[in-house]
């Protein structure tokens, strides 16, 4: 047993040819976030605080699809959603349809802690944000030129893009893996076995206005209970159908599978190219399986294992931390 943390910046069809100018900032952000999370765990911050602070950092980074840098709806607007869950109490908070809130994950936490509800969305969530005095910016703050380009490509291809999709035009300037940026998430466990999970996203490129994905849905994109904490990424509709995050925990609890087995089982059952997840168990284990080409991810354990990666390591992309 010991603390452990895992972070993702989205799973999808990330081409191996991703040029260094797109790779480097993303890897640097993951490294930075991992360091922040590890430092917080070492300082005995509760996992709920740790996952929130890591996801805030990812939201603030323009190179990931959350907060600033969120992908755009078909109307060219940003609608952000997020979810946070505490393993011991199974208290949770979720928000959707945010357009001015700088850190959706923190608003989700406020919903959990300051209202009798779990989930607030759209105008009601924005109104709550103002009541709570959280930091807000004009909607234009969140929109980046890269995302305007992505939306344009998606509309031209008449397609709703999943987090990571190879553009149809092979010779398009954005065929550098740059059309693909993903949901972000973090799971953490401290050395007492306390677990927490947090996920945040701008959703799908060219999504319909009002579309809600798996991220804010407890049991689909986000889940934590006394067994494990899970954050998923990929095609929302597939993740919802498969109740990915809940299923990992259910397999451990009801079928006695280990974290690694449970996570691998769930990922295999979802159609290929649609899902990835990060998960930690109460025992300090970590796993990061995905059935897509790649998943931006990072993890670290108290034993000293640490990893930052995009594509599969030795074939299956599962973080190997079995030294105990």
């Amino acid at each position, binding site marked *: 047993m010991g603390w452990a943390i895992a972070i993702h910046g989205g799973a999808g069809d990330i081409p191996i040819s991703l040029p260094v100018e797109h790779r480097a900032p993303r890897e640097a952000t993951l490294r930075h976030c991992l360091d922040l999370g590890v430092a917080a765990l070492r300082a005995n911050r509760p996992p709920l605080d740790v996952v929130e602070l890591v996801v805030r950092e990812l939201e603030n980074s323009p190179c990931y699809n959350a907060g600033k840098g969120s992908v755009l709806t078909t109307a060219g607007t940003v609608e952000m959603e997020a979810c946070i869950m505490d393993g011991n*109490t*199974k*208290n*949770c908070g*979720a928000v*959707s*349809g945010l357009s001015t809130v700088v850190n959706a994950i923190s608003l989700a936490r406020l919903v*959990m*802690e*300051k*209202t*009798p*509800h*779990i*989930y*607030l*969305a*759209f*105008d*009601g*969530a924005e*109104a*709550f944000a103002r009541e709570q005095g959280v930091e807000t910016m004009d909607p234009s703050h969140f929109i980046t030129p890269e995302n305007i380009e992505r939306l344009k490509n998606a509309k031209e291809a008449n397609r*709703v893009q999943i987090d990571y999709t190879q553009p149809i035009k092979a010779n398009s300037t954005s065929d550098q893996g740059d059309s693909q940026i993903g949901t972000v998430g973090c799971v953490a466990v401290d050395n007492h076995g306390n677990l927490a999970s947090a996920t945040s996203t701008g959703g799908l490129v060219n*999504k*319909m*206005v*009002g*579309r*809600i*994905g798996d991220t804010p*849905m*407890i*049991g*689909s994109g986000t*889940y934590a209970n006394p067994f494990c904490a899970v954050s998923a990424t990929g095609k*929302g*509709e597939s993740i*919802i*159908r*498969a*109740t990915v995050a*809940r*299923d990992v925990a*259910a*397999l451990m609890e*009801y*079928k006695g599978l280990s974290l690694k087995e449970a996570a691998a089982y769930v990922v295999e059952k979802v159609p290929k190219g649609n899902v990835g997840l990060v998960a930690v168990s109460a025992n300090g284990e970590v796993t990061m399986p995905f059935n897509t080409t790649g998943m931006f991810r990072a993890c670290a354990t108290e034993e000293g294992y640490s990893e930052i990666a995009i594509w599969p390591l030795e074939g299956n992309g599962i973080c190997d931390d079995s030294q105990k």
Partner: protein
Amino acid sequence: MVGGWAIAVHGGAGVDPALPVERQEEARRVLARCLSAGAEALRAGALALDVVEMVVRELETDPVFNSGRGSALTRKGTVEMEASIMDGRGRRCGAVSGISTVKNPVSLARLVMERSPHSYLAFDGAEDFARKQGAEIVDNSYFITEENLGMLKLAKAANSIMFDYRVPLTGADTCRASAGLVADVGGELQMMNGLPISIYAPETVGCVVVDSAGRCAAATSTGGLMNKMNGRIGDSPLIGSGTYACEACAVSCTGEGEAIIRSTLARDVAALMEYKGLGLQEAVDYAVKERLDEGKAGLIAVGRNGEVAMGFNTVGMFRGCATEEGLMEVAIW
């Protein structure tokens, strides 16, 4: 019992034991009517997905229960409805939230599933989609009943949130505190803060069906909590929480939305069957007993083999079921 169709409906968990007999009879009549309509369709070979939609539409249209007409009111005195539907074969699903002018939210949820690339649409986006799809639109006032306007006033006066089953909670501003209070109440409905239990409590509605081909489907629809914050989403539209269907079974839940979400109640029933090998009723009982903690809720479920199961830890749940074998029952307590 192997094979054969089966259907179960609910009109909400948590009923005032002092509910006047006339209101009880009224509720039973509506449930019986919807059940019969569903059973008749199943006898004629209808598909599970069509039957759950049809039955929930009936329940939405009737003002007796908390969905569609008769929905609980938000803080602002408006109606924000939500619904979801799921087809066990393929686990296709559709959901909507923040619906204020669409006459039948469950049908809109089905349209999201079948005519959009997504699974869940909410608020303005869902309303726009409804218009583009030609769904029946009415003014928001259509959904508001005198009774609920009165209830909202009382709820505001007590500055409390009223759940489906009308147990007002006092002073509690967090999920945790609310759960604690319900536990204190000991499962019995009480008056708190001087607020009287309503004469009649409109409830979330739902339907689960297994058709003669063994295909399962579920649908749930609601107006949510009386005096809820605008924008609040409960369990009913959340796949895995209020609604779930897979090859093995279909489930629809009702009660404290927050408790149902936390416990991913609908999915858990199916997961207990799938991963722990429990039978349908066993899974339902386990979920209600072990998964809700201090939360109060109920659920209905059907299994692919034509079984029906129901469970609740509240005082009463408006419900009914019918099977191909000829069972037909409507109950409250």
